[in-house]
């Protein structure tokens, strides 16, 4: 249960970080370490070098811009959850973040790290996918924006290149008159979900995004689907599998129950919004 030896780099600027990534092939970025350190300790990963970005300046800001919430790569889950501005501009963030692990893990784990780690059982990738957000990545070749639909390519696999540093993510603002909701079922509060659903209702459009029931976060368009059929329509796009925590049938049943419930909550969220104005 101890990591294998690795070379350690502690850059102070983003440019220094990506130059180091380019110069030391195979090096991995160390952000909050809440996913990476267990992998290293269990020796499921043993990269030759780590680039610790915790001392990189300028990556810890949460900024509200016209297009939404900009989250720097060193913003911890707990900081994003506690931000009243972020909560106002995109309420789905806080509704999902309370389900991410326990407060102690959220104190250290970064929201952007969670996106790049691309665990299909994680909450934030599903949220980014539903909202059509993006990640901004930098490397010696320059910076580029990677939209969510191109980011998540497989289980624990993002499309960032090995020498790219994610600088931040953009979670689009909630459009006026739209509603959002999040729900999941886990064995124990704080555990990874057996199934989770995020929903967005805007005008006639209804969309739901899923975690833990497919290889990659999956967004399903449920516009015009009658309430009783929502779950079964969604299941045509999902692939719940059985494991030690739950059978495939049980997960499918959770898709049916949660889809109906969460879509209904998103509709109500939209109505609440109207009454408030």
């Amino acid at each position, binding site marked *: *249960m*101890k*990591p*294998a*030896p*690795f*070379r*350690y780099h*502690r850059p102070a600027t983003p440019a220094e970080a990506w130059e180091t990534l380019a110069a030391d092939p195979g090096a991995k970025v*160390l952000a909050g*370490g*809440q996913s990476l*350190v*267990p992998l*290293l*300790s*269990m020796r499921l990963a043993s990269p030759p070098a*780590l680039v*610790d970005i*915790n*001392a990189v300046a300028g990556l810890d800001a949460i900024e509200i811009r016209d297009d939404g919430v900009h989250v720097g790569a060193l913003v911890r889950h*707990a900081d994003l959850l506690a931000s009243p501005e972020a909560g106002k501009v995109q309420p789905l963030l806080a509704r999902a973040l309370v389900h991410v*692990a*326990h*407060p*102690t*893990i959220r*104190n*250290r784990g970064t929201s952007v790290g969670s996106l790049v780690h691309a665990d299909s059982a994680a909450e934030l990738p599903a949220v980014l996918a539903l909202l059509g957000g993006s990640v901004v990545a930098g490397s010696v070749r320059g910076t580029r924006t990677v939209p969510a639909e191109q980011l998540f390519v497989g289980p624990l696999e993002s499309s960032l290149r090995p020498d790219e540093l994610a600088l931040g993510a953009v979670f689009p603002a909630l459009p006026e008159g739209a509603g959002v909701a999040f729900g999941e079922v886990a064995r124990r*509060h*704080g555990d990874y979900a057996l199934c989770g659903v995020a929903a967005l209702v805007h005008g006639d459009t209804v969309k739901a995004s899923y975690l833990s029931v497919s290889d990659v976060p999956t967004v399903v368009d449920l516009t015009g689907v009658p309430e009783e059929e929502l779950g079964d329509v969604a299941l045509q796009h999902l692939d719940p599998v059985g494991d030690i925590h739950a059978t495939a049938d049980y997960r499918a049943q959770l898709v049916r129950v949660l889809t109906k419930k969460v879509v209904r909550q998103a509709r109500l969220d939209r109505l609440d919004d109207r009454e408030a104005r």
Partner: protein
Amino acid sequence: MTEELHQVTLSVNGVAHEVTVPARRLLSDALRHDLGLTGTHVGCEHGVCGACTVLLDGRPTRACLMFAVTAQGAAITTVEGLAEPDGSLGPVQQAFAECHGLQCGFCTPGFLTTITAGLRDNPTPTHEEAREMVSGNLCRCTGYQNIVKAVERAAELGRTAKDAS
């Protein structure tokens, strides 16, 4: 291969310590082995049990999910730092003793650090909030009821101390 060593200054319970460690030294191991502060316990070593929880700049953090080199510059508080300056038990420790919040004591350091920060942020937790405060820590002995009671008792002790001062 001879492993590269790093000089790190760890600030623990207000005292600066110089340690020379390989980059892969977990913070939990640096505290226990390099500094001899064995109050921080190690259970699962992958972030699940909470026994190793320390305060990093005041926030509960898993010491087993951090490298000592990363902790450079941060203020670390371990269970050894929770006693009163005269060596008597701090309010959370006292509450654990009064409420039988521990049996074997293996999990206790992680609960004490977590609750200390929890009550600082929310000095008057509801019963529900008291449970939520300890939901990320595992205990194989007590069945948790007395730990939740200890959270509420520690909050009470904290209030009395405030009134007295």
